[in-house]
């Protein structure tokens, strides 16, 4: 089984990503790789999610790997609402 995340069966699935503002040090690799998802805030130099904040899982894994501070992660899927 390949370890390459871009080849995984769920590589094309859309996932949501989040940035931990405390950990982010404003290196900017995320913004460079995925400018439709990440931008460094002009005033705080911290990465913020712009737009929907979703992208293909394989691309999310790549940008997470490239973030040197480890501030980016995939958001947990929303918990199902119980039926009343």
């Amino acid at each position, binding site marked *: 089984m390949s370890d390459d995340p871009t080849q995984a069966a769920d590589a094309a699935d859309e996932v949501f990503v989040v940035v931990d503002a405390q950990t982010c040090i404003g*290196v900017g690799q995320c913004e460079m790789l995925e400018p439709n998802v990440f931008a*460094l805030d002009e005033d705080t130099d911290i990465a913020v999610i712009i737009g929907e904040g979703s992208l293909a899982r394989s691309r999310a894994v790549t940008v997470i790997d490239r973030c040197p501070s480890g501030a980016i992660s995939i958001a947990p899927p929303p918990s199902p609402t119980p039926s009343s």
Partner: protein
Amino acid sequence: MERTVGATDLADPQVYAAGIPHGVFAELRTRPGLTWNAIGGDISDGFWSVSRHRDVVEVSRDPETFSSAVGHIQIYDIDADALDARASMIDMDPPVHTRLRRLVSAAFTPRHVQSYAEAVRNRVRDSLDAFEAAGAGDWVAAVAKPIPIGVICDILGVPEQDHDYMIELSDHLVAGTSSEPLDPGAYGNTTDLRLLPFNSPAAHALNEYAHSLGEQRRRQPQDDLITKLIEAEVDGERLSDEEFANFFRLMIFAGNETTRSSMSHLALHLARFPEEFDRVRRDRSLIDSAVEEVIRYSSPILYFRRTATRDVVLAGTPVAKGERVVMWYAAANFDSDVFADAERFDVGRPTPPANVAFGGGGAHFCLGASLARLELSALLDEIVSRDWSVDVGEAEYVDSNFVNGIEHLTVSLR
């Protein structure tokens, strides 16, 4: 507790007299766990050597356990007052580190660094034009030294006429990590060397210079990094004179010695692996991966050290609170568990996995990484465009256990 003690003292600069000691590092990597290094044969004065890629990454990303603040980030220990006097953000842990880093990080993002592209390209062209006209020379003096210092000085706002002085001073800083003795009174220094970074009088000279330039910018602000530092506020307070000077010195040293080393090594690689450079010339989409390979193969910073803040097990070896942990980036960069056929210079080597020449990640990841990459790709692109073939003399390495630098390298164009 039994500990594996290494046969080679990695703190001895002589070990690096001919560049990276691949044989010694290969042996370290294959030994299970960590290896204890007895400095000068004294087993009670030692440190743990971390040589594998995954272990370097683990240490790098856990600043709470492996601190840059509680002990020095160089192998030798220094007193608390000495540490205090010289500390810049590289000697700090989050959250203090984070606040300082954010003062300057915007100037070094990949996006912002692109704004320097033309200025960098011009400096590279000027150096290479002159070198071509001469036909041969000391590559380090003619190309590898002046380009990076010129670039970082431009960013900082240091005037052109002072660039040579900055080169002179930062050369002395590196000399402070070697086995050569220093003259404590150089540059009119009267401060105890203990309290000076790298135990060098050149640090005193840099402090003086920083203060005088800072004063000028305070009176007449300009659009440069020095002005930004002078005006910056952390928690509502301006940087102290000492903090400002330490910051300036960090930029001057970090922004030039390292890139100088990779640019010097690039010429060596060109001579040793011309067919790899041909690949780049024929296919410029290889520039980025080629630059990464130059950086991996050069590993300009041999190590940085951390101190354990608690008892911890690393790579299966118990590390006691207070013990020194040294990350050998130059060893991890040739870890065959991560880099297939690691000693092969391959301009098409896939990334990820990232090399650890810029550090293993985490808060201290090299601030200048994007800038270094910009400078190296400009140099590489110009060299392959000119279709150079070169002969080189023997590289004379900087006498240091910390930097993998080249003092002199004769290069002749064919």
